[in-house]
């Protein structure tokens, strides 16, 4: 058939380019990582969070040069294979290559030393939490076709609101509630502007971000910094170890020794997945995001669906904001969200607008973040300011669409006119 011939015939130029790029990556890996190594050198990776764990795993010790050769060879092989035969899934291709590159980097950086791999993965999840919450806020709003780029601002406001109320009331839970409510409030404003008045969704989101940055910074410098004991000192949620589950090697310390907000985040991921795909509400939400007119002709209230979803999204972003203060440092600093809301949107896109995908891609961003911190501790000969770019560089790579095109809900960002 002509169709089959075509898939091998036509896109070959693009395939050769990709293949060459992979070969170049393999070459770069050997140029960068191999020269600094010595024969017989090893890298040790710790697999236990503390030495008091119930089941202790032996540390993983890898011969540096052999491992690097193997990883380079895998990349080169992938490149050559892709050029010759073509690999269908760009995700798998990118995944394997990225894994090899990161692994090579880690082995090179830890050569002759040891690094707690579990520690790094644990902090990946922790650092992924606000990103994942932002991404989940994005998923639920955009599934109903409302783009919310004000997530960053919502989180900033919630962070400040929650720490102040928690400090004043001396209750972390009240602070958490206020954080969530403030998120709902700002999201409701956004929803009202874009649904009722059909204000451009991007403009409204940008306005929220600017408003949030200005207001929180002003309040912070005017009040919080002067009376930080009274207003800006909430303490943080304690780590809760789940009995039994936390004893499982590797998985236990990563997933089951966390604070309340991290657990809530994981619960929301699962609940949102079930709601979106297995309940009438989710079906209607997705219909409203894909083809609002169709939903309308079947008697579904498009506007109501959008309001509720955006406001619930705001509550999730509010929780994410509270994480920065109550879940992490117990104190508000100006512009402390540092773009996590935007990275969350990237995670949402990379996760193809579904909750599990958004969570997984948040983990990748969290990992990039945690990696750069560890590398600074390991004193890798790369300036820390460049290492600090890691999560943002990953964001840019992801957003170029190199890693497979994500398909947004068809009506995403469009106001609905009856």
């Amino acid at each position, binding site marked *: 058939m002509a169709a089959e011939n075509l898939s091998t015939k036509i896109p070959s130029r693009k395939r050769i380019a990709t293949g060459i790029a992979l070969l170049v990556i393999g070459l770069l890996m050997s140029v960068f990582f191999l020269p600094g190594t010595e024969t017989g050198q090893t890298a040790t990776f710790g697999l236990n969070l503390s030495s008091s764990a119930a089941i202790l795993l032996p540390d993983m010790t890898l011969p540096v040069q052999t491992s690097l050769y193997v990883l380079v060879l895998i990349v080169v092989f992938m490149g050559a294979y892709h050029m010759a035969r073509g690999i269908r899934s760009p995700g798998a291709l990118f995944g394997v290559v990225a894994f090899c590159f990161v692994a090579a980097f880690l082995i090179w950086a830890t050569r002759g030393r040891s690094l707690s791999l579990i520690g790094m993965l644990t902090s990946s999840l922790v650092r992924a939490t606000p990103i994942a919450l932002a991404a989940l806020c994005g998923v639920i709003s955009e599934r109903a076709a409302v783009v919310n780029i004000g997530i960053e601002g919502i989180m900033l406001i919630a962070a400040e609101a929650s720490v102040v109320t928690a400090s004043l009331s001396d209750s972390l839970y009240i602070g958490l509630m206020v954080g969530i409510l403030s998120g709902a409030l700002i999201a409701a404003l956004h929803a009202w502007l874009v649904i009722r008045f059909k204000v451009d969704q991007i403009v409204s989101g940008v306005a929220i971000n600017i408003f949030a940055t200005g207001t929180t910074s002003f309040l912070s410098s005017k009040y919080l910094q002067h009376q930080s004991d009274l207003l800006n000192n909430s303490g943080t949620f304690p780590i809760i170890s789940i009995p039994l589950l936390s004893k499982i090697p590797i998985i236990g310390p990563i997933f089951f020794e966390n604070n309340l907000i991290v657990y809530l985040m994981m619960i929301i991921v699962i609940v949102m997945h079930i709601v979106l795909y297995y309940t009438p509400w989710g*079906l209607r939400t997705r*219909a409203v995001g894909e083809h609002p007119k169709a939903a309308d002709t*079947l008697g579904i209230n498009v506007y109501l669906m959008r309001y509720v979803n955006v406001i619930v999204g705001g509550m999730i972003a509010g929780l994410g904001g509270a994480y920065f203060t109550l879940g992490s440092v117990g104190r508000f600093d100006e512009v402390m969200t540092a773009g996590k809301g935007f990275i969350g949107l990237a995670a949402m896109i990379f996760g193809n607008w579904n909750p599990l995908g958004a969570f997984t891609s948040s983990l990748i961003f969290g990992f990039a973040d945690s990696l750069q911190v560890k590398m600074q501790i390991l004193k890798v000969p790369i300036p820390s300011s460049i290492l600090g770019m890691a999560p943002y560089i990953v964001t840019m790579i992801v957003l170029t669409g190199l890693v497979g095109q994500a398909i947004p809900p068809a009506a995403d960002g469009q106001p609905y006119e009856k």
Partner: protein
Amino acid sequence: MPPVLQLKGITKAFPGVLANDHIDLELNEGEIHCLLGENGAGKTTLMNILYGLYKPDAGEIYVRGQKAEIENPNDAIQRGIGMVHQHFMLVPVMTVTENVMLGVEEKRNGVFLDRAKVAARIREISHDYGLEVDPDAYIKDLPVGIQQRVEIIKVLYRQADILILDEPTAVLTPQEVEGLFKILRSLVAKGKSLIFITHKLKEVMALADRITVLRLGRTVGTVTPSEVTPERLASMMVGREVNLTVSKKPPKVGDVALEVKDLYVEDERHQVAVRGLSLDVRAGEVLGIAGVQGNGQTQLVYALTGLAPVLSGEIRILGKPVRKPTPRKILELGVGHVPEDRQRHGLILSFPIHDNMVLCTYYQAPFARGINLQEKVIVANAETLAKQFDVRTPNVFVPASSLSGGNQQKVIVAREFSRPIKLLIASQPTRGLDVGSIEYIHSRIIEKRDEGAAVLVVSSELDEILALSDRIAVMYRGQIVDIVPAAQASKEYLGLLMAGISPADAAKSVAPVAAGEVERVF
């Protein structure tokens, strides 16, 4: 017994238009009632009022003798009124089951969707009414004919007994139309009552029990098919005598003007849409490309006019090979293009008519001198063309967006036909136009052919292809499956090819027709 449905004095005004002006309509039980009218006659407005999407300014609706206030689709659904919309109201990324249950979901444990139960009910409905469909298939994978069945199932699932079908045949092949008619007759046999909206006369004659004709928002009259001829219906629709056939002389064929060899083109999603297509068009003839929408016709025309890159293959226009075509390069070779989507590719809607008339020549004398546009010349040109091509507009300074579809198309035709073109590429030249405009544009196309231009017409309306073409090519899945001289083409044979039946099999199942027997009524 009172009629199932009665509309009395329905009036609805939009800013500047009286879309419905005291319309009366009666639907009896078990009847197929056709609502016939040109575009803009107010058919769709009337049905949207009945379905609760619009609120009438005046008038009353009675369902089974009882006065009904229909405020929103829910009210309509509750009263047993269901609508199959012209543009399908289906979510492409969802399954048939999900689309059918949307809004009236069955629940398990009070919370979770019960897909299995709905799927079982869909199978029941499929079986009862002969509407074969796989409940687990995704809508985006289904051909339009099947999608339409899903729309009908959606309505039946909600237990509607009054069905409104808004131009349901617009997207179907002739065979699919036959299939649809069979389904509609079986619906009526089971006691459902149907309102069938269309502007195609032949369908009305074949299907209707009664016909109500609308013109400019008013009821012209209600008749039965036995009382009228298609010509009589057409003149009721348009308000004057209409010539339903395109009269043309035999072609005087000249040199090859367009030659395409082994052409491959991608669509916007980088799927190969035209796969190894070859054809040629000679001066003085019309080659019609028939095919169901979405079989690569759009991409073919895009490639020929420089709107999309060519993956591989060769295009020769007037003997010259065209490599890396750009629209301007192609236009300057003497090619006229009437694009498929007139509002997107044909006009700049916010520009006045006079600027739209020089969109492809504005940089040449006499419209430009150096870097200056010659405003007076441009306006004078537009005024001449508007008169010559019967563009009905108060003046040439109004924006193109203020014109009706037919007049917008005439602006494009005027612009393209007034240049000295040797090859005309017209894609869906009369889509959505009323009978009067269709008649006009068809005669202009034939005129161009008689002047010696080569014409390539792409249309999903088989009747249009049959009316215009000297040779007919059928396109299916990006390839030309067969090219036949128009005189020997039967509608059935072409329809089978359009549905993907191979030429050999199609020829077997269709009796050959003698020349001149082909029906030319549209």
